[in-house]
């Protein structure tokens, strides 16, 4: 969006291309552009220098809807156990994100335990164990093929008896149209809410930034099954922008809490809506 261009049809076509290419979604982009065109008339805007501010404002507005612009943090208990359940489709970065978050919470002085709730995929338990070692936290696991709800149950008992502050639960990746797998996930969540007061404190849906419009369907279906409280948007270190989270927040009121920026244990950052919107144009 260069400075001092005329705000004409070409300008709006270029803007449309940038935002659609960022996976913001064609309907959201068309609505935004209609809104911007009205704004241009109302404020009698002549050049694009002024537009940059207006566009960023509007995008941040779409994200926050009519709520105030508070970055949403993890809702952890002051004392007593907090449980975070990680959910999402296959390969998005759930297990890696748990490793990063365990490291971060430990740095903040919390006692963290991991539950190896993916009992299905080859090497899943071993993968989480490596992350446990890297973060310096214990991992509760059963044999491969065992019931994920039983692992999570054990994780809760162990977290209690060891005085842990936070239990991070890994689950197997699953596509949202697989009803039996979504039911399995709902059952895991039930175990947590039954065993832990106000649990799970967070259900984090992990979304891959390279995902297109299907991310909306993922957010809707996973939320129906487990009442998602926040999103971790991973792989933002690539060229994909993850623009779909604007519509997800706007329509489903699910906030992005963290972004994944790489494969190292330190590559996790709190979500910043202004920085995110800026990144759509980078």
């Amino acid at each position, binding site marked *: 969006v260069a400075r001092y261009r005329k705000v004409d049809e070409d300008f709006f076509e270029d803007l449309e*291309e940038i935002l*659609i*290419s*960022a*996976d913001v*979604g*064609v*309907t959201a982009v068309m609505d935004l552009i209609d809104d911007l065109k009205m704004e241009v008339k109302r404020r009698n805007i002549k050049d694009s220098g002024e537009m940059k501010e207006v566009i960023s404002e509007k995008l941040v507005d779409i994200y926050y809807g009519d709520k105030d612009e508070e970055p949403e943090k993890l809702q952890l208990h002051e004392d007593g156990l907090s449980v975070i359940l990680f959910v999402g*489709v*296959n*390969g*998005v*970065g759930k297990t890696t994100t748990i*490793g990063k978050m365990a490291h971060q919470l430990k740095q903040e002085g919390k006692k963290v335990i991991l539950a190896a709730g993916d009992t*299905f*995929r*080859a*090497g899943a338990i*071993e*993968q989480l*164990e*490596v*992350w446990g070692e*890297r973060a310096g936290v214990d991992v509760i696991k059963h044999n491969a093929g065992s019931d994920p709800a039983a692992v999570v149950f054990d994780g809760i008992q162990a977290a209690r008896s060891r005085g842990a502050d936070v239990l991070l639960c890994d689950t197997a990746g699953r*596509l*949202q*149209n*697989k009803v039996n797998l979504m039911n399995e996930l709902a059952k895991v969540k039930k175990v947590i809410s039954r065993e832990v007061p106000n649990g799970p404190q967070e259900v984090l849906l992990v979304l*891959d930034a*390279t*995902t*297109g*419009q*299907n*991310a909306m*369907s993922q957010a809707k279906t996973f939320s129906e099954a487990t009442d998602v409280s926040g999103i971790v948007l991973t*792989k933002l*270190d*690539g*060229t*994909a*922008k993850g623009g*779909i989270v604007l519509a997800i927040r706007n329509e489903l009121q699910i906030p992005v809490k963290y972004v994944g920026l790489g*494969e190292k244990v330190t590559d996790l950052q709190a979500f910043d809506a202004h920085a995110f919107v800026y990144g759509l144009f980078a």
Partner: protein
Amino acid sequence: GLAERLQGTIQRIKGKGKVTEQDVKEMTREVRLALLEADVNFKVVKDFVKRIKERAVGQEVMESLTPGQQVIKVVKDELTELMGGEQSKIAVADRPPTVIMMVGLQGAGKTTTTGKLANLLRKKYNRNPLLVAADVYRPAAINQLETLGKQLNMPVFSLGTEANPVDIANQAIEQAKAEHQDYVIIDTAGRLHVDNDLMDELEQIKSNVNPDEIFLVVDAMTGQDAVNVAESFNEQLDVTGVVLTKLDGDTRGGAALSIKAVTDKPIKFAGMGEKLDELEAFHPERMASRILG
């Protein structure tokens, strides 16, 4: 999908009894929206709509009794032609082993597809594959591939995580020759197309082992970025085919059209689930219908 989108315009045309250029303009606009919603890349959609516009204002639509149906037919024909014919053959080297290299972004499904291809090669083609664990970065990646090897009762070559992927690939080929394994499938670590060092690593493996197939593995739910990824991997490695994974999901899969349009390489296989027998030949016509919804 597209049919519903065209309903409004179709009803209006029925009322008037004749089609105008304005009606056609409206219909191509609906085609554009349907393709963008299906995750087809913005520029690919632009080119595609140009292609169909000429046919759309031609006789076959303007003089048709069912212009809406004609537009859908035009779109389906053009899409199917763009997607190419079915091409699910796997290369066979003049002298064994035939070498297949799996590449792609993190989490796309390379390791799982390596297992599926090995399964297919044995069951359908009676081959004797060797799986190669060349991902030395991801925690327990070697364990993952070795577990798949055990499930398939197939050998896995590994030098552990301290070895160099180029050495692993070279030595795996040596073993395959010695042990008479006629296919070698090299599973590589996921990487970003913009990570120069890791992309160089792939070029090094390629120049060392001269693969007969380089399969770019792509997640079917990939959005607009599919074009960037496919273009980069193809420019740097000249891939021989594409595997689109997780097609058992409900994503429209427009990435398929974007990838084919920008690389012109065949999409050979479709991953249809997590089990090792869930790999199918890619059907371009079916994909075209799915994209249109």
